[in-house]
Each structure stands twice: as structure tokens, then as C-alpha cells.
């Protein structure tokens, strides 16, 4: 029977390989709508031109599979908000006469394009340009996107695409990081299109790296649509088979909690893990500016001045007694402990 059985069970192996032949997916686009930055970019890439390319790309995503879905979120300077899906109130409904896309467009595309373009249009229509420095609501946008995806993920594979122009400064570090982990945990790749040719975003690089997404800085804006089609609108099911451009060098620097500066060497509080760019930030009180614990004076001094640290190293009062006792215990037990002194004398070898 084995011979017969083998036949039946082998056919099974072949058929199951096509498991993810074509599964529908959800694409969540986060558009950076910071008007100040867009104004700066105007000579090479206008916001309108970007929207046009994006619309066509979204259509192409929908064209891949009938069951594909999209969501569009605007990362506006007044806060993140959904552009699509969006629940339009009655009054807005009446005000809206403009058709943004041709009426004979394929209806599945038309409904979505119309909705999100009109919402985007509204954002800019009744806005006076901000007088103060606009805030960056990327963390809010990401949170909304992730919550939306979480709801949908039961039956759709999902990914996030961020069209970013704003620089990293003034980003809330912790919420962004939390969002990245949530995305990582739920296996949602974050793709980033950095449209500004002038700078790269450290955090978004980290985001796409951690979630196995694509990060690409687009410098030539004339071929934006081609970039979108070849790099960012690759269906999830063929991510494994297509060679996707990756960034060779990723900056994993972190932001200082107090000054917001981005640093490559920092001082980390052992209790709250906050990152400080300089020892002097703890001040005279020797307290952590975030969690308010008091640091050991010796350690601080050591960090500030390594030469001085050598002098006071032996005088770690109170600690020395503990060391002696520990040695005694080591003698009693089977002697696995090595040098207890080195461990306690300098908590962090420098």
C-alpha cells in the first residue's frame, strides 16, 4: 500500500505550494501634507503632481486584485486624519460639487479617488498657512493606520506606505518607536518614500528596516510615477521573489530626551532608559530629568572625567563591605564566582 499511498500524498505537496498565489491586500498610505515643506519643494515637485502620481498608483494597487483595499491618512500639521475611508457629514455632502476624476472612470477607482481627493482638497482649501512651526503628527498617523489595519488584518495582508517630506526634528520619539514595534509585531512592512531630496529621515529608515519595508529617497521627481510603480507598489505576495532596492547604510542613532538632538553616543539612565546627550544634563541635583531618580555621584563623576574616576574608584563607600562578604560566600560555595571585586567596583567598565 505504501506505493499507492505515496502517490496520493505526493500530489498534495505540489498543490499546497500555491498557497499564497494571490491574496488580497490592504495598502495604507500616509501622506505628509505639511504645507510649509511642500512650498519649499514646489520648484521640483508640487503637491498636486504628487497627488496625481499617487492616485494612479493607488489605482494600480486596486487593479492588481478586485478585493484589494486602500486607506489614506493625511499627516497634516493640525493633526492626522483619515482621507479615505471617511465618513462625510451631510453638509459637506451638499457643498461638494466638484468631480475630481472623470465620471467614466472604472467605478471602483472612481469612488475611492473622488473621496480622498476631495478630502485632501478640503484640507488645503480652508486653511490659512500656519504661522508657527507646524507640528509633526507622524506618530498619530501611524497609530491610526495600525489600528485600522489591526481591524482589517483578519482577512487582509497589509502594509503601510509613508510619503514623507518633513524632517525628523520635533518627532515624538517614544510613540514613533512604539508604532514601529507594533508594526513589527503584526508583520506589517512600513515602506517609506522620502520625497525631499535634501535629507534622510533616521527614524523612518529604522522603521522600514525593522519591519522589512522599503526606504527610498526619491531625488528625481520627474519620474515619480515610475518609482512608485516599480518600488512601492509591489504586491506583498511577491515581496519574497522580487529584488527590492535596499539602503546600504542605516543610521541607528537615537534622539536625546532633553534636547531632542540626535546622537550616536549617549548616556542612558538605568532605570527609565531615557537617553541623554550629555552628562551635564542631570544637573546639580544628580537626578534623571525623566524619572527623577538620584544617581550615584561617583558614577557621574567617572563618566564626566575618566581620569578623576580612577582616583575615586576605590572609595566607593558602603560598596566595599558588600564585596568582602561576597568573597566569603564564594569561598563556601563551589567557587563558581570569579572576581566579585571587578563587578562591583565599576558598574560599567569604561
Amino acid at each position, binding site marked *: 500500500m505504501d506505493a499507492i499511498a505515496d502517490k496520493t500524498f505526493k500530489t498534495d505537496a505540489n498543490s499546497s505550494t500555491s498557497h499564497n498565489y494571490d491574496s488580497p491586500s490592504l495598502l495604507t498610505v500616509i501622506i505628509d501634507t505639511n504645507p510649509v515643506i511642500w512650498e519649499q519643494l514646489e520648484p521640483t515637485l508640487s503637491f498636486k503632481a504628487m497627488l496625481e502620481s499617487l492616485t494612479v498608483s493607488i489605482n*494600480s494597487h486596486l487593479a492588481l*486584485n478586485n478585493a484589494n483595499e486602500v486607506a489614506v491618512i493625511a499627516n497634516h500639521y493640525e493633526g492626522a486624519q483619515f482621507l479615505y475611508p471617511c465618513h*462625510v457629514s451631510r453638509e459637506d455632502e451638499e457643498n461638494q460639487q466638484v468631480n475630481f476624476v472623470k465620471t467614466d472612470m472604472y467605478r471602483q477607482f472612481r469612488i475611492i479617488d473622488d473621496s480622498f481627493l476631495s478630502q485632501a482638497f478640503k484640507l488645503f482649501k480652508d486653511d490659512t498657512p500656519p504661522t508657527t512651526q507646524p507640528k509633526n503628527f507622524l506618530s498619530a498617523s501611524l497609530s491610526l493606520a495600525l489600528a485600522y489595519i489591526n481591524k482589517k488584518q483578519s482577512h487582509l495582508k497589509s502594509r503601510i506606505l509613508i510619503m514623507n517630506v518633513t524632517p525628523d526634528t520635533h518627532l515624538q520619539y517614544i510613540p514613533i518607536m512604539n508604532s514601529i514595534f507594533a508594526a513589527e509585531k503584526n508583520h506589517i512592512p512600513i515602506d517609506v518614500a522620502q520625497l525631499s531630496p535634501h535629507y534622510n529621515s533616521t527614524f523612518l529608515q529604522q522603521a522600514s528596516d525593522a519591519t522589512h519595508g522599503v526606504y527610498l529617497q526619491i531625488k528625481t521627481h520627474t519620474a515619480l510615477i515610475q518609482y512608485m510603480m516599480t518600488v512601492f507598489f509591489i504586491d506583498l505576495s511577491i515581496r519574497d521573489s522580487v529584488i527590492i532596492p535596499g539602503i546600504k547604510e542605516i543610521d541607528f542613532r537615537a534622539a536625546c530626551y532633553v534636547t531632542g538632538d540626535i546622537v550616536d553616543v549617549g548616556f542612558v539612565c538605568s532605570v527609565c532608559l531615557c537617553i541623554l546627550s550629555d552628562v551635564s544634563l542631570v544637573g546639580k541635583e544628580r537626578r534623571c530629568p525623566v524619572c527623577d531618580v538620584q544617581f550615584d555621584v561617583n558614577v557621574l563623576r567617572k563618566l564626566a572625567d575618566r581620569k578623576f574616576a580612577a582616583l575615586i574608584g576605590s572609595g566607593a563607600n558602603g560598596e566595599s563591605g558588600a564585596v568582602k562578604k561576597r568573597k566569603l560566600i564564594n569561598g563556601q560555595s563551589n567557587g563558581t564566582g570569579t572576581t566579585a571585586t571587578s563587578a562591583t567596583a565599576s558598574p560599567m567598565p569604561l
Partner: protein
Amino acid sequence: MASNLFKLTVNDYLEGLPEATQSKLYQSPATCLAIFRLLPNLAKFYIMTMIFNEKPVRLLDLDTWVKPQKRAEQVEGIRSIKSLHILKDNGEVAVLNPKFRENLKNVLTGVDIGVSFGAPCETEDSNKVDISFLDTYASNKWETILHFMVGTELNEFPSKGVLHLLRHSGLMTGGTPKAMVITNEGFQFLLQDVNAQIWTLLLQYLRMAESLQMDPVDVLNFIFMLGSLELGKDYSTSVLSETQLNLLRDLKDYGLIYQRKDSSKRFYPTRLATTLTSDATTLKSASTAMSQVIKSATTTTTTSSNKGNTSGSQESSSTAVSAASSTIENAGSIIIETNFKLYAYTNSPLQIAILNLFVHLKSRFANLVTGQITRESVRKALLNGITAEQMIAYLETHAHPQLRKTAEEVYQKKIQYDANTNEKFHLIQPNITDQIKLWQLELDRILTWDGYLFTDFSNEEEYQVLQSYAEEIGVMLWCDHNKRKFFVTKEGNAQVIAYANRKLRKGK
């Protein structure tokens, strides 16, 4: 997944068409989009990268985009677009079929589409019908056909055209409607999802149409257009060709289209039609259309409150929402436990009838039937010609979302703990699938061939001569050199005997 099945069959059909016919098909933007959706993923990717690229692409580049270990998929992708003549190459560079490229580009940008996606009626229909009506209509029509196939007592039979097609496609046999019985293919047909079923019939129809001198381009264009129409909207028949009008009349019999009167100048596509080119997830089985009716009935009551001023956008957004929610509802209904007990959340007599083909059903509640897969029930199905594979496929495509979710979680965990595990994804517990397969094997515990055993050879030489001759002409099934015995088939026996007579007599 079963959805691939219909894609494969439709693709096979399209690929088999002559190039001239294919080029004619690409004249219609709607058809371009529909064909695009049927392609394998990598083929879609190639088309997308080339569609906005004015320059031809070097063939070598096509290779470099794909990881070497996925070569097989790439070859398959390129083969499919080449045989559809969408991709052309001269050995060095590749270009897309200009017409196809132009039209697909137009679809994406919304320019120059014309009436390819149907011509909505300009005037208001005085006898307007709503979506729930269309759903009931469609599911009635379609389920009547399926019920007829499973042999339920019916008040009315499907139309003559339908019966003819059922006979023609070999799903049923018999002369009069009463005498028609389902064939093994028919049983297998029942286990497919609706999309695959409709396409099976449509492809049969196409083959028939060709012999009736109908232009397949016209027919296909119309079918693909139907797939892109909006549910609940009325469309004008004025832009249709003569062939398409004929087709329209026939498709009414299957519930794909609703027309109030035969002479009416407007028609409504039903859900069966609008999901023609979509994935199976949109509509799993006809029975779900029923629950759709119940669902939409409740939603219409809620939306009726603000029906005062329905502007276009609101209506469409609400349908989009309801369509999205329905995909969740329709995802599946069967839960199967490792102890072979089966629970199906359905009240459709049809689905119950289909389940009854291979499940021992025990009790039935308002929206639930319970049953058990037993050796006997599976054997009954096997004897009906349903294969184990088909039963498993049915269970998989109709699996309850919760079952799917848990299975995926378990699989994810396994991958996490052991990245290079060679374990495969099991939606249905392997003990169930294996047992069903084993039951199928049980039917074939012995293999038998009629024939003759040659034995009692007087010497080694005689045995050698005859045995090697029998082996040469391929009629030998078994031999034992030590005992000097071999077995030949019934058909080969005469030859071997004749040879033996020639050889051995001569020898004497």
C-alpha cells in the same frame, strides 16, 4: 485556493485563442483590466513596471529584478504574458502590446475609456429595483440550477438553454428534464465555488458559441464588462452589439443579469455578474447571497432614514462599506474539529445538500448544521466519484475565518521557533485530511489485472526467451526469475502465445 482554479482555466482558454483574437480583445479597456487581474503576480509586476516606461526593457533586466531562487515563478509569469501576446520581444528587448498598454494606462488614469465599463442609463427607471432584490433574484436563479443538479424536488425547471448547456458540458446526462441525472463531473462541479462554477459554464458557452458562429471577442468583452459594472445600477442596452444582446438573453437564465421585460432597454447586473472577475473571497457560495439579502435588508432600513437627498458619492460610499463588511461575513462557515465533528453556520438548503454528499449530518438549527465526517459518509462520496482532494478543497475554501486565523497563528509560531521548518501550512488539521485520503486509499487496497500466468517452464532458456519478449512488448506485469514465472496482460497473451509457438516449435 479554489479561486486560482477558475483563473487557471480562464487563462488557459485565453492563451489558447489565436493572436488576432487576442489583439481584438485588447481594444476594450475593461477587458484589459480583467485580463490583467487574471495574470500571475509576477506577470502583473512586469506589466506595472513597464506601463509608464516609454523605453523598451532589456530582456536581461527582467531577469535581474527577480531573485534567482524564484526563477520558476518568473518563467511562468513571462510565459503567461507572452502566450497572451501582451509581452513581445525580439530576443533582446521586450515591449508591451501597444494597444494593451495604452488601454490599461487609460484605465488607471481614467482617460478615454468611453463606454467600455458599460453605459449607465441616463433616465431614471420608473421600476427601479434595489440591491437586495437583485441578490434574491440572482441567488434564486442560480440555486435553482444547483438544486436541479442535486435532484431537489422543484416546481420549475431551469430553462432549455441551461439544460442544454448542462448536458453539453457533461455535468448531467439524460434526455428529458425529469430523467436527467448528475454525473461525476457534476458532483465535482458542485464542490467548486460559485465563481468557478459560473466560469465553467461560461467557457462551455463560449465553445458552443464558436460553433454557432458567434464572435468570441464580442462574448468575452461583454463578460469582462459585466465584471466591472456597478451593482444596483441600470445600464443601457443601446451600446451592445447583436451578439451581445443574444448573450444578454441567455445570461438572464443564469441569474447574472436582471431585465424586467425582454424588450426592456435597460438591464441590471447582479452580484453574480459583478464579481465575475473578482476573487473568490468576495462571494464564496450562492448560499451567502442569501445571508447577503438578510444583511442588506437591515442596512437599508438604517440608511432609509437619511434617504432624503442621496447624492452620488454618499450612495457609493455606503455601498463600498457594505461590500467590505460582506466580505467578512462571506468568508466561510465551516468549522471542523480534530474529532471529525463538523459545524457549518449556514441555513442554505443547497450548502446543506452539498455537505450531505460527504458528511453525516446530525442536527440542524436555525443557522447551523452539525455533522460528522465518518468513514461511511466519505466512502459514499468517493463512490460518487468525488475525490478526497475535492472534499478537502471544499472544506478549505469554506473554512470559518476563526479556523483560518487559528491555523495561521499556529503556523506563524512554528516558523518563529524554527525558521527552517519544512512543515507546511495546514488549514484543516492534518489528521482529518490524511484520514480522508486514507479512506480513499482503502477503496484501492488491491490493484488487479486480468491476464495469464506463465509457469512450469521446462528450462531456463525457454523462460528467458518468453519473459524477455513479453517484457519487450510491454505486456509483462510481474515476473519471478527464481520460480520461472511471469504474468502478462490479457491483451498481450495472444502475442506471447503466438511467439512461443513460433520460437519453441522451431527449436524442436
